[in-house]
Each structure stands twice: as C-alpha cells, then as structure tokens.
C-alpha cells in the first residue's frame, strides 16, 4: 500500500467521523470541531490520491490551501454564532424546533 493510499484511507475515516459528529453531537463546539475533522479528512484524500509515481502534484496543494481558508472562515462564523447564541440563551446546544 502506497503512502498516498494510507493518507487517503485515513482521510476517509476522518471524514466519516466528522460527518457523524456534525450530525449526531449536541454540543455546538464539538460539532464545530467535528466539521474541522471532516474538512481535514477531505484534504488528506485530496493530497493522498493525487500522488502519482512519487511526484508531487502542485494543483491539489493549492486547492487544499484554498480549502483551509474556506474552512477557517466557516469555523469563525460558526464560533461567532455560537457565542451569540450562548449569550442569548445561555446554552451551547440548539433549541428544539417549533413544529409549524
């Protein structure tokens, strides 16, 4: 098994864990961390699969860099909203939805 595939396999596991975390966890901070895990998993796969014949492909590196910027922005937004929600309701979990 090449190092690339090991990276990719790890990435897939991380991604699956992340998705499960975002969907199943209640605490908002944990969900945000899970989202970051998800993103890292995807980046690992991108880097890992793109290794061909030992040569490093620069394009996925650039993509991952962009992706990291995006996920930093998303994390910041999520943190800001969480802080605000905590200030208003005192809770770190989402209130139950009203069914109407």
């Amino acid at each position, binding site marked *: 098994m090449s190092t690339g595939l090991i990276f*990719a396999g790890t*990435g897939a596991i991380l*991604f699956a864990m*992340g*998705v499960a975390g*975002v*969907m199943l966890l209640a605490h*908002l901070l944990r*969900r945000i961390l899970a*989202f970051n895990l*998800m*993103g890292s*998993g*995807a*980046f690992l*796969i*991108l880097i*890992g*699969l*793109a290794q*061909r014949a030992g040569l490093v*492909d620069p*394009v*996925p590196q650039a*993509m991952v860099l*962009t*992706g990291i910027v*995006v996920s930093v*922005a*998303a994390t910041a*937004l*999520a943190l800001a*909203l*969480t802080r*605000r*929600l905590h200030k*208003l*309701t005192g809770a770190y979990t*989402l*209130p139950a*939805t009203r069914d*109407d």
Partner: protein
Amino acid sequence: MTEFFDPLAWLILLPLFWASGAFLLGPTRGARLAIVGVAAQLWLAIDLAVKVGDGGTAIRHAVGGWGAPLGIDLIADGLAAAMLLLTHMVALPLLLYARGYFAADASVARYFWPLSGFLLAGLNALFLAADLFNLYVTLEIVGLAAVGLVAAGGNATQIAAGLRYLFATLIGSGMYLLGVALIYGAYGTVSIATLTPLINASAASAVWIAAALMLLGLMLKTALFPFHYWLPPAHGGAPAPVSALLSALVVKASFYLILRLWLGPFAPLTGTIAWLPALLGSAAILWGSWQAIRAVRLKMLVAYSTIAQLGYLFLIFPLLGPDGLALQAGGMQVVAHGLAKAAMFAAAGAMIHVTGRDAVADVAGVASRMPVSLFAFALAGVTLMGLPPSGGFLAKWLLIDAALTQGQWWLVAVIIAGGLLAAIYVFRVLRQAFLVPAQGERRHLSHRAPPLLEWTAFTLAAASVLLGLRGVDLLRLLAVGSGP
C-alpha cells in the same frame, strides 16, 4: 483593453466592491451604493443574455489572461446567462425593498448590505465557474453569506436557524469536496469540459462514489425532501428580504449545479437512478404542500411552499430526453419560481410589517388595507399554482407534456395534484385576507404600508406572471450551448 470591460469578470467584481464599500460606509450610504451596484449588474446581465441569445454560442473569459488548466475559466452559456439574469432581476427589486424594510432597523441593515453583496458575488461566480473546485469555493461563499444573512436579525431563533443551516450547508459542501477529491484522484483534473468525455459507465468505483457524494451533498443544500429540515426555520425566520433572496436564488444555485453535473460529466452514470430524484421530488411536492396547508405562521407557509416547488425541479430528471422538453420545463420553473417566491416573501413581509403579527389568521382584512401587497401575493400564487398565463403555467405545461410523451403517468398525477394543493394554501391566505374583520378587531392595522415595499413586491409578482408571455425568448436563451 476590451478584456478589462468583460461583463463576466465585472459581474463578480462589482458586488465584491460594493459589499466592501457598504461595510465601510454604514447602512445608509451603503444601501445607496449597493442599489447602484446591482443596477449596473442588472444591466451587465441583460447585455450578456442578449449577446449569448443572439450570438447562439457561449461566452468565455480567462481570468487574468490565464486560462485552464493553470488559470480559471469563466463560461456563460444560455443556462448561466439565464440564471444571472434571474438573479439580478430578483436582486434589484429586493434590495430596494430591503431599503424600505430596514429603514427603522439599522442594526440588521449593517450586516445586510455587505452580506448580500458577497452572496451575489458568490452566486455570479458559481453560475460562471467552469471547474469543480471553483464551484466548491463559490458554493461556500454563497453558503456562508446566506447563513450570515439568516442570523443577521440577531435574536435567538434566528441564530439557531442560522447555525442549523450552517451545519447542513457545511455537510453538503464537505460531501461535495470529498467527491471533488476523488475525481481529481481518478482523472487529475477538475475542469468540467475535460472530465465530461473521460467519464463513462465503466468508470472506477471511486468515481461512482464521488458522483453519489457530490449529488447527495448538493441535494442537501437544495433542501430536497427528506433533506429539507433546515429550510423552514431558516427561510421562515429570517427578515423578509433575506427569506426572499434565499428562497428565490440560493437554493437554485445548488440545483443549477446538480443539473450541470447531471447533464455533463455524470450523464453516463445517472441513467439508471433518474427515478430517485423524481421520487424524492414527488414526496417533496406532497409533503411541502401539506405542511404549507397546515402552517400557522404566514412565512412558514411560504417557506414550506418553497420545499414543494423545489420538488418540481427534480421531476425533470427521468424525463430528460432528446426533445429537451423536460430541460425547458426545469429552466422555466427555476425562473418562474424565483420571481414568484421573491414576490411572495416580499408581500408577506409587507403584510407582517404593517399588521405587526405573523400568523395566517392575522391577515384578515388586508384586502381592503393593502390591496397592492395582496395582489402581489395573489399573482405570485398564480405562478406557484401553475395557472395561466404565468411562467409557472408554461413550466407545468412543458413538464406534463414531457411526462405524457414518455408515458410517465404517475408524474402527471403528481404535477396535477401539486397544483391543486398549492391552490389550497394560496387561497387559504387570500380567503383570510378578503374576510372583513369584526369591528372590534381593527386594532393592529394602524399605519399605512410603505409604498416601496408594496410596489417592489408587485413588480416581482407581475414579472413572474408576464414571463408566461416571453416563454419563447427564455427557451431560446436556455437552448444556447446547453449540455457541456
């Protein structure tokens, strides 16, 4: 120097400029800047649509003079030009509307103007992008700006709706990104044009997984049943101009992407499962309409109607054929629903603004106090019900025609039933509005409706109906370079 004035680049740059400007200048001057900017963009979009429609070929732009594979390509074919035109036809009235709506509320407006600029920049970039990774970035820009807009109101319900929406959209784009990674791993490229001839039915299983992940992620972002859970609180809870932008445009962006992928690179993979989106779409129509029928709050009714109307878009997949009827139906429905839903949220917002209450029961007597808003709501309703002469009617006609041509009777039944269910929830509101309230109940109809709110809603509604008379032009535009 002709390159410098290329409308494709300016459609993305202009909103970025005025969004930053609005952030620095504050809500009052920022609003003016934004409206001037969107007016200029509308002009660019019209110009582009005319050029593409008349020229009959797609228009390209290599950003900074660097084309693919190293740089970024922007491509405007008929579908993209139509989406850009729709975006700005909806955005300009809505920004004017927002100026009236937020006049008394500077705290929300402070966020609204910059965020709507970033939203439009993201949308425009998304419609023009030609590679899968750029599409990911634009999807995220759109998603984050939309979440910001939902939460901009700042109360706990809106923040919670924003967070719920944020996690949904992040999972959706995460799945999309994973798909992109797998595709890049398999083919070493993310350019849609390069990929399309490479992918065929005997592709590696990683490609199948990639396609499944990307389409599922996008369906989640389009709020297709049963992934719709995040939409009603987000669209029903946000301020009216935001709900209108989101329902009319943002969900269409991810649908646009599904359509691109389905018709382009993934076409060889999707043939056997085309019934699945149609099945989910049918469920969305029935479930969304049913929820709209029993919704207590007016904006929730409109939000659930969005879920139902998005369902129609997914009915086209098993019907896509050489006659192009289904694709035309889809394009027509996207535009008609975009205009109508923006109008409906705007009208509902105006009614809530004046009555100060948001239950369906509270619109009683609106017919005599706010006839223009009610008219706007009714005209938008005509489009949603698919009654003539609206654009929604033409979409429904084309869809039924396509379904009959292919012998898919169950789809015909769903479409007809969906129209009747829409009539129930639309007339539920109209009926209430025509009721003369009992003498003691004239309480909260104290102040007059701001004309700006009423007439912008009316303009959008009238456009959605009059689209029915310009069907030929829209279909001609959509036909340009459709397919990869």
